[in-house]
């Protein structure tokens, strides 16, 4: 398994390179530059800016320069935040996004699996219908509707929780964003769990366990849970992607200085280096996560073997 992981990681390098090339071309293809504004710069100043940021060099040269610096850890200055470097901005915002995303993922997995299992056990009863109805609404209503409604009721009207990020320093400001982010995933995972659990519970070896007199809880915990988790584990990849997408919305609504915010602003402001830096970091993270998911899959499902 170690050899497999190493091989995968090595193979990831050309992937990463390809990703960077693609993103580089895309960002530079966008019309407009980072220093355009209604106040047109005098020619002399514009030339100086271009020279300082190497924007006057041909694209391939800029690309090589960028890669050479990136490999040594220097992701360049931000064009929009002239007092900060890209590394500083990412270092400041990535932990927040990761915290938010992980908490949301955790919440989604725990609550989703629990809800789905309960629904499966009480299949076709009222409980089942209610849980599935909630799940269905969770995947049918976009986050940018749920989040503002949550803010309106819980933060503005009832003032139970902070409406924004910068107004306080405690953990309370995490609650609403995490819940908003997790809701659609809770819904998906609940549905997946229910379907998978129903399948597993109907299989022969479960019947055997029951016949042996094991209680429901024991059956679930020791026999049904692991095999039922297979589809959930495969869903982890898309779930993470879903949380990433949702985080762009949630960060904007709660004013959280996360990576999603910086990316959207960077794309709109033509902040080339910031955009590229974020794409690289994320691609690296996704590659790593995919590897981890595959490895977990191998642990859970004894039928899968890696050579």
């Amino acid at each position, binding site marked *: 398994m170690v050899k497999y992981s190493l091989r995968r990681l090595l193979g990831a390098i050309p992937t990463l390179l390809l990703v960077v090339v693609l993103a580089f071309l895309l960002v530079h293809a966008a019309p407009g530059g980072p220093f355009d504004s209604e106040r047109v710069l005098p020619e002399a100043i514009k030339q100086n800016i271009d020279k300082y940021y190497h924007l006057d060099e041909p694209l391939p040269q800029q690309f090589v320069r960028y890669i050479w610096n990136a490999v040594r850890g220097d992701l360049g200055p931000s064009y929009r935040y002239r007092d900060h470097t890209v590394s500083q901005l990412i270092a400041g915002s990535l932990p927040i996004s990761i915290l938010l995303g992980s908490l949301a993922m955790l919440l989604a997995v725990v609550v989703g699996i629990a809800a789905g299992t309960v629904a499966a056990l009480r299949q076709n009863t009222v409980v089942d219908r209610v849980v599935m109805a909630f799940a269905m609404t969770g995947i049918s209503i976009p986050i*940018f509707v749920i989040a503002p409604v949550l803010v*309106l009721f819980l933060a503005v009207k009832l003032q139970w929780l902070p409406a924004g990020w910068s107004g306080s320093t405690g953990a309370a400001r995490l609650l609403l964003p995490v819940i908003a982010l997790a809701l659609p995933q809770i819904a998906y995972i609940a549905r997946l769990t229910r379907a998978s659990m129903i399948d597993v519970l109907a299989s022969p070896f479960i019947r055997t366990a029951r016949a042996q007199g094991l209680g429901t809880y024991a059956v679930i915990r020791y026999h049904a849970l692991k095999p039922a988790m297979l589809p959930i584990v495969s869903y982890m990849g898309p779930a993470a992607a879903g949380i*990433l997408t949702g985080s762009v919305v949630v960060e904007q609504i709660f004013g959280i200085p996360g990576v999603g915010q910086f990316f959207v602003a960077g794309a709109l402001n033509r902040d080339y280096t910031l955009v590229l830096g974020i794409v690289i970091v994320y691609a690296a993270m*996704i590659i790593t996560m995919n590897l981890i998911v595959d490895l977990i899959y191998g642990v859970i499902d004894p039928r899968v073997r890696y050579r």
Partner: protein
Amino acid sequence: MITISAASNAIGRARVSRLISISGGILVAIAVIAIVAPWLSPNNYLDTDFDNILAAPGVAGVHLFGTDDLGRDLFVRTMMGIQVTLLVALVASFVSLVIGVLYGAIAGYVGGRVDAVMMRIVDTLYALPFIFIVILLMVVFERNFLLIFVAIGAINWLDMARIVRGQTLSLKEKEYVEAARLTGVSTVRIILRHIVPNLIGIVIVYITLTIPQAILVESFLSFLGLGIQEPQTSLGALVDAGVSQKENAAWMLLIPGGLLALILMCFNFLGDGLRDLFDARQSP
């Protein structure tokens, strides 16, 4: 327990076909109404009416769903929104279907080196944070309406390709494919005549899952201000506009939002039903 599961199986099957027909029926009804209703209404989606801004449904005469913040009739705009949303979703899914099916079928059937390379490319593309790429695409190509379909289709085809490849691998071993190969039928013909038609089942199932995804991505782009351009609109754009008016004019959010949710639910139920059907047919 055995008897119960057998009974629930039969009940299950009946439920499944009811699920398919009801959700399918609702979707068709919505689509038909969305296309026909604007012809029957005296309003169009363009006309502004500054004296009747943010009128509640039914209040200002002929505005069945009320008006928006420019006094435009919300009923006709919602119908248009449904048309656009369904169109985007169907076209985007079709794009991802065509690319995914051909890619996966070729990789699965040809196998060997070609398969390895093709799947490697898929793995590479999986590593791209897609939503970021979509945002960049939107910025670069300045919100071209056509491009929205392409961009959304470009996200989804990867899963389709993987699944199709898996199916193709098992279909490859079937007798009639062997027979065709032995009698000298060309690879291309085999793929198009024998493999692809047998993929239809699983493809249809996954289409009903990718369509809701495409719809949500389009609405998400509208939220960011990168979606469909004025004066056209989509359900996602209407919902986004409705969110900012949720306290003054709740109907601007509830009506398009409710319809969006309904459409998504129907596609999801449809997918559930079709998947159960497909699995039932598959199992021995």
